[in-house]
């Protein structure tokens, strides 16, 4: 099993796409992936510090050639300003999960310990369930989800990865990252 995970990781790329903040741009990007047969693992979109630019973080599976095609095809979309692949870059990657987990009285202590270890927070509590907020990389989230499954997860949502390069380098808004 660990081998398959490694294989997947080798093929997984986190790319950041800067796009004009126009209606329909998400459809263009999503449509491109669908049409060319590229699979999106996760997708997070929001506006940037510049209200005219949105930033998408897309996690895709594929080898080097597939990624090169994705990058080039994305760059062909008129509303795409820049595409950056963070695979080879030192980058911070974060995913946020909200997990509604069964929390009967006799389990609450254990769950709170787990949450503490993973530096999560309990943000809602009722007589039968907690909502836990936890942030981190994909692996960390996978782990806590795995641990919480023992108590019964009622509902879960994840934002998908967002990423940013370490250091002072930025995904500049001008100029295109081609070739």
């Amino acid at each position, binding site marked *: 099993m660990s081998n398959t995970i490694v294989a997947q990781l080798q093929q997984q790329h986190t790319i950041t796409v800067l796009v004009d903040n126009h209606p329909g741009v998400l459809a263009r990007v999503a*449509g491109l992936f669908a049409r060319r047969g590229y699979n999106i693992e996760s997708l997070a979109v929001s506006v940037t510090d510049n209200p005219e630019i949105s930033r998408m973080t897309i996690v895709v599976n594929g080898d080097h050639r597939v990624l090169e095609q994705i990058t*080039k*095809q994305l*760059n*062909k979309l*008129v*509303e*795409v300003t*820049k595409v950056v692949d963070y695979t080879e870059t030192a980058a911070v990657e974060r995913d946020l999960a909200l997990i509604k987990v069964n929390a009967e009285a006799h389990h609450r202590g254990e769950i709170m310990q787990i949450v503490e270890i993973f530096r999560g927070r309990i943000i809602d509590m009722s007589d039968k369930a907690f909502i836990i907020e936890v942030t981190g990389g994909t692996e960390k989230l996978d782990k806590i989800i795995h641990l919480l499954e023992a108590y019964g997860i009622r509902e879960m949502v994840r934002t998908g990865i967002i990423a940013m390069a370490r250091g002072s380098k930025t995904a500049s808004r001008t100029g295109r990252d081609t070739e």
Partner: protein
Amino acid sequence: MLMSGAQILLECLRKEGVTHIFGYPGGAVLPIYDAIFDCHDIKHILVRHEQGASHMADGFARSTGKVGVCLATSGPGATNLVTGIATAYMDSIPMVAITGQVRTSVIGKDAFQEADITGITMPITKHNRLVKRVEDLASAIAEAFYIAKTGRPGPTLVDIPLDVSRNQIEFDVETDYPKQVNIPSYRPAGPSGRVPDLQMKKAVQLIAEAERPVLYVGGGAIASGAQAEVTALAERTNILVTTTLLGKGAIDETHPLAIGMLGMHGNAYANHAVNNADLLIAVGARFDDRVTGNVEKFAVGARIIHIDIDPAEIGKVIQPDVPIVGDVKNILTELIKQVQPREATAWNDQIMEWKEAFPLVYPNDGNLYAEYAIEQVNEIFDHDAIMATDVGQHQMWAAQYFKCNRPRQWITSGGLGTMGFGLPAAIGAQFANPEKRVICLSGDGSIQMCIQELMTATVYGVPVITVIVNNRSLGMVRQWQEMFYEERYSAVDLQASPDFVKLVEAYGGVGMRATTREQLRDALVKAKDVTDRPVVIDCVIPTMEKVYPMIPSGQSVKEMMLRHDLEQVKASVHADGETWSFSDEERVLEQVVEVGATGAESAE
């Protein structure tokens, strides 16, 4: 001046140098048609079906290099353009499609004749845009034209809601129309772009080292207007040139260094040349599957230089040894300067030997065949006519037998393979080239897909000559069913077709029928004298004719079938008089492969 969106639109089109709009009115474009009523310098051509409008704009663009313009109303009008837009997109043809849209206040409410045309055409346009404010209209039009014609050309679409074309603002085209379009996220390579020095050096070196080079030239050479450069490069290096379906005309096809089309139905000698090459110089071509067949077996011994304006084409199908991104004309101009002259070598002789060993042939039994008809078109129209085709067997025969001596003389739907394209594309080309004769070669299947445009041709006095190669069947599909589906002929019989002669007469044109070679020649000569209305020649050919050579889908040159191979082999397999059937396929292929192998050995 206070102007409506519709008036602004026409001002902008005028500014872009538009001379013809191919369109069809409707509710959502009423203000635009009202403005057209007062517009006398831009000619509006009323088609009979919006698909015809998009193909006409396409034919106009292909025959000139200018941007073709089509116009349709919202909903069904817009969706009827779709096939034409997709056709233009696949072949990188500059086109601006303008569609009406329902009022902005009811968009998304399933209003009458509402269709999300920007959503629908997203994957088949280079870019499209819904204009929600009349203030944005001029810049949207400027961008649409700029994007359509720059870089790798392609269709764009501007969707204009009814209220946007009706609303009025102060507008002066001289000051308010963008003189330059600046889109920070769109920076295509241009005709004067930077040439990558290092890659050029590598290319020059590969060419110097090559013993068996071949130039493989596609539609990109036409788009960038590089016929002179392709020819000059070939002549300087004595490298033979094979062209793709869309590259026809990138070199005069009667030039001694031109070896015609390659690929599935390409010349056997062109395919042998590519298959045995040690260097393939791809120029504005995209390694389409109809060219490569099985990619794993395509030009395996060759190093590859790939010149293309679109970076995404590099490595999409085949990883080149030397990628050069840029405008073909620009790159070739520089390459010609840098490359060392080469003499013709034994390799050139070898290809010429193949040319003699594997010529294009059709039965010389005195009967009328499509190939003969095409040769006669060449001759009777002095190798000067523009040839538009539909899609199917006749298209491949035309690709093989019609000889282009210049670019933009050949108009065909390559990538999408759109039946129904030929007639409207020919009409569009005729509007753009009133001094030329335009021939539409079609089939009895294809012609019926847009035949209503004969009326458009009659109304505007367009003397397009349509030669219908009539085999009373959907020939290309029938050919595949014969060869690969055990002769189980499913839904290919077109015995029941209209009388095309009477039909064109009903449309107000001239109809003639030819069942012999003499009749065909006579009909073409007569057609040449008709200059004010469309002509249709119903050219009756045998049903069972097939297109050769043929490399079966997804296979390689080794599996190429030549006419005499298959016919002879069939005859020998069934000397006892039985009919040939699919079960013989393997035996036939074995023998064909031997013939192919003999060809390859003689290369050594």
